[in-house]
């Protein structure tokens, strides 16, 4: 078209006008650390695997998850999911059911037989792992994936450590446990069962190991000084629970008193209940002060377990116990009142915590032990070069997830140490806290509740109490995730820019700013739901 001069213009010719020069600050895409990820003791990239689960790509989700933690089916049952307590969604309605989705993925993997990724090459290094609990098996997994030859020495007859000999099966069915353990073994991890290590240095020398990771747990039940008659039947919780795994079930009688306020006490009481007893928990302090998780206490109460709060056992006899009432002082500490009572009891189970058996470490130079646990450096190495440790035997919170996290970290450090290097963990991004989000954009979606076994069966069988989510509920739950701090391709930035200064790169490829035209209005930053963009001052 021969166009009239100046009045009539060619389409889109304004691209010649680079409005980017107006900008005083520029938007940049960033990844912030979601609070859940930051919180996860196993260092899972929760937001990352939820991202895949959101689209129904469960295998990718599972693969992403198992990069950090090879045991999602176990996690989905026994992890205390502190991630959920910091989940930003909790400030909108309820936290994302991270744990339930994790379990779904774990179960899906077992159902469909997904395998862990074997190492791509062999390093030729030999690493010893002592103890086949979660920490040891986690380390074995990560070391193997890094190409090292791994041998696990386990004193007991089966894999799993306290997960098998402590955690009752109504919470963690043994087929699940075994399957996830075996999947690690299938990567080529050598396992020597019924092989207790008595002297670590000897074992290392004999097996020509280049390094060792110790995760022997804490198995020695703590005793309390309770004056007891000869006929009094007193057992410790760990031995009791361990015997549950054996052929011969322990004889506890009808009236079982459990002394303690931790998760172990509750597991013991609930186990006793399932064996037909009438358990009573005796605890020195109040419910609020109990170390046990509230949900576990709640489930126990539902099952008909009785508790005596603010009580200490002062005397144990053949069929009775003497109990002294306590009262809280002004600092909230329980003090004896001098008021006594006698209750009937066929047996007393002490659930007062565990100590570590450090026998294998005797005579190891450089090693430092404090408060009954082995000190480790930030790289999980003990005072003795080449010997690393984690899990319940080192100073940390004692739970499965922490142990798994230790195993992972130790594996990475061992790997570096074997190469004479130092593993430098990636610097953590700034946290995507709630204030960074624009929550307008998230659909209202209440949390999905996992099904619970009916109460009669909970009181009489060892069937699993808590059910899992099904495909649709798991998908729903995954989609409740706000994707804190990480682009989830909602296209908001691409849409809201008045200057079309955002380039969409296509599915999975995210976006890019076109600074030729971006005027720096900040709208994309304000309207990004998850806080994945930030404004930076332009250098002028």
């Amino acid at each position, binding site marked *: 078209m021969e166009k009239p001069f100046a009045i009539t*213009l060619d*389409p889109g010719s304004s691209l010649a006008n680079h409005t980017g020069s107006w900008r005083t600050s520029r938007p940049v895409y960033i990844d912030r650390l979601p609070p859940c990820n930051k919180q996860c003791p196993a260092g899972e990239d929760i937001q990352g695997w939820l991202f895949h689960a959101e689209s129904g790509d469960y295998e990718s989700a599972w693969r992403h998850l198992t990069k950090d933690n090879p045991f999602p089916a176990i996690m989905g049952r026994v992890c205390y999911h502190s991630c959920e307590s910091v989940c930003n969604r909790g400030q909108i309605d309820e936290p994302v059911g991270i744990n339930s989705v994790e379990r779904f993925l774990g179960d899906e993997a077992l159902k469909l037989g997904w395998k862990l990724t074997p190492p791509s090459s062999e390093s030729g290094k030999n690493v010893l792992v002592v103890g086949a609990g979660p920490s040891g098996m986690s380390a074995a997994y990560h070391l193997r994936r890094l190409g090292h030859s791994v041998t696990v020495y386990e004193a007991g007859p089966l894999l799993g450590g306290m997960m098998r000999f402590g955690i009752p099966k109504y919470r963690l069915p043994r087929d699940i446990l075994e399957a996830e353990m075996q999947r690690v073994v299938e990567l080529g991890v050598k396992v020597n069962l019924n092989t207790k290590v008595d002297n670590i240095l000897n074992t290392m020398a004999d097996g020509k190991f280049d390094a060792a990771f110790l995760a022997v747990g804490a198995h020695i039940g703590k005793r309390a000084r309770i004056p007891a008659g000869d006929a009094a039947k007193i057992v410790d919780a760990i031995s009791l629970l361990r015997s549950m795994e054996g052929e011969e079930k322990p004889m506890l009688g009808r009236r079982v008193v459990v002394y303690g306020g931790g998760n172990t006490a509750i597991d013991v009481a609930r186990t006793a209940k399932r064996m037909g007893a009438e358990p009573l928990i005796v605890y020195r302090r109040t419910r609020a002060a109990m170390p046990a998780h509230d949900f576990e206490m709640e489930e126990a109460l539902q099952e008909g377990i009785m508790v005596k709060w603010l009580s200490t056992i002062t005397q144990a006899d053949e069929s009775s116990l003497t109990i002294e009432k306590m009262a809280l002082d002004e600092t909230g500490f329980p003090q004896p009142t001098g008021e006594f009572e006698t209750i009937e009891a066929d047996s007393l189970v002490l659930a007062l915590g565990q100590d570590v058996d450090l026998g294998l470490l005797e005579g190891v130079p450089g090693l430092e032990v404090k408060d009954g646990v082995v000190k480790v450096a930030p790289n999980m190495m003990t005072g003795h070069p080449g010997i690393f440790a984690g899990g319940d035997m080192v100073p940390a919170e004692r739970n499965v997830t922490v142990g798994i996290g230790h195993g992972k970290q130790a594996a990475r450090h061992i790997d570096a140490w074997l190469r004479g290097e130092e593993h430098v963990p990636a610097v953590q991004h700034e946290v995507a806290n709630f204030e960074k989000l624009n929550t307008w954009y998230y*659909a209202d979606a209440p949390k999905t509740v996992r099904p619970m076994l009916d109460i009669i069966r909970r009181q009489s069988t060892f069937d699993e109490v808590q059910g899992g989510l099904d495909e649709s509920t798991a998908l729903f739950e995954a989609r409740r995730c706000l994707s804190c701090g990480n682009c*989830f391709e909602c*296209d*908001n930035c691409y*849409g809201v820019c*008045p200057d079309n200064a955002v380039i969409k790169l296509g599915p999975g490829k995210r976006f890019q700013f076109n600074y030729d035209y971006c005027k720096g209005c900040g709208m994309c930053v304000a309207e990004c*739901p998850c806080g994945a963009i930030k404004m930076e001052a332009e250098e002028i």
Partner: protein
Amino acid sequence: MSFQPVHFYQTGTFTVGNRLLEASERSVQANIERTNSLNSGHRACQGCGEALGARYAIDAAMNAARGRLIAANATGCLEVFSTPYPETSWQIPWIHSLFGNTAAVATGIAAAIKVKKQKGQMGDVRVVAQGGDGGTTDIGFGCLSGMFERNDDVLYICYDNGGYMNTGVQRSSATPPAARTATTMPVGPEPGNQFGQGKFLPAIAMAHEIPYVATATVADLRDLEYKVTKAMGMRGARYIHILVPCPLGWGAASEDTILLARLAKETGIFPVFEAENGEITGNLKIRRKQPVEEYLKRQKRYAHLFGKKPAVATIARLQAAADKNIRKYGLLDQEAN
């Protein structure tokens, strides 16, 4: 319910896109191949709601018309910032004639298309007219009403930023009460724009009983696109009134444009609804109701209502106006029945 949001977590249809939705369920703006009818390089202010609204609306119209669209544009910011010689940001056939005649120009285009189609010289091409609130509710009102009354085959889109922005923020008949403009200064006994004046053009458009009238904001893209698409599916005179915050004229932060549009809707200050043949057929409910202060306090044009001695009575009047909208248009769920 005018627009059926997809209850599809995590963001459903609140965000521009959602990778979890089927491609067919996604917005026009989410499309990597969207038209960008109003392209980069235009000279609108940072965070301009009108530029955004225009691309949202025209891209949707282009999508509905399968690329066969002609636009007529009134004088005003949109025209000035998009087509200063020697550059235009428009990728579609576009004409600017005058400030007050856009609806009529569009009528002419539609008439020409009709004849050309009859003669087999042209396929189906659709027409939109667009202008600011001043160009629509004031100076262009006569032509607009004529176009409505004749039921000409034109979709008219008004970008309401509540004033004559292009000439330096003067009052129009769409300027809200109490707002400061260059001709309604916050001085004297009744500072800012007077109460009891102004007009709400969507209601007047409805009185013409034209096939379709709707309001929308730049904060609810899916609703906006739904309405443009619906309008494009109809013939005859159609009117869509889009609230487009103006950072400059409203004295607001450039990144707050969408937030303000959202607050206008969530407070009830700006009712979002649609009507067919003069009857209201749907509305967009308030999702998280907010007091009008939340909207007002972010804008310097209302700054005289706050400060040391807040104008409590004036704020209450504005709240009452918002509440009236909520009642009148049934904007809250419990009020619906």
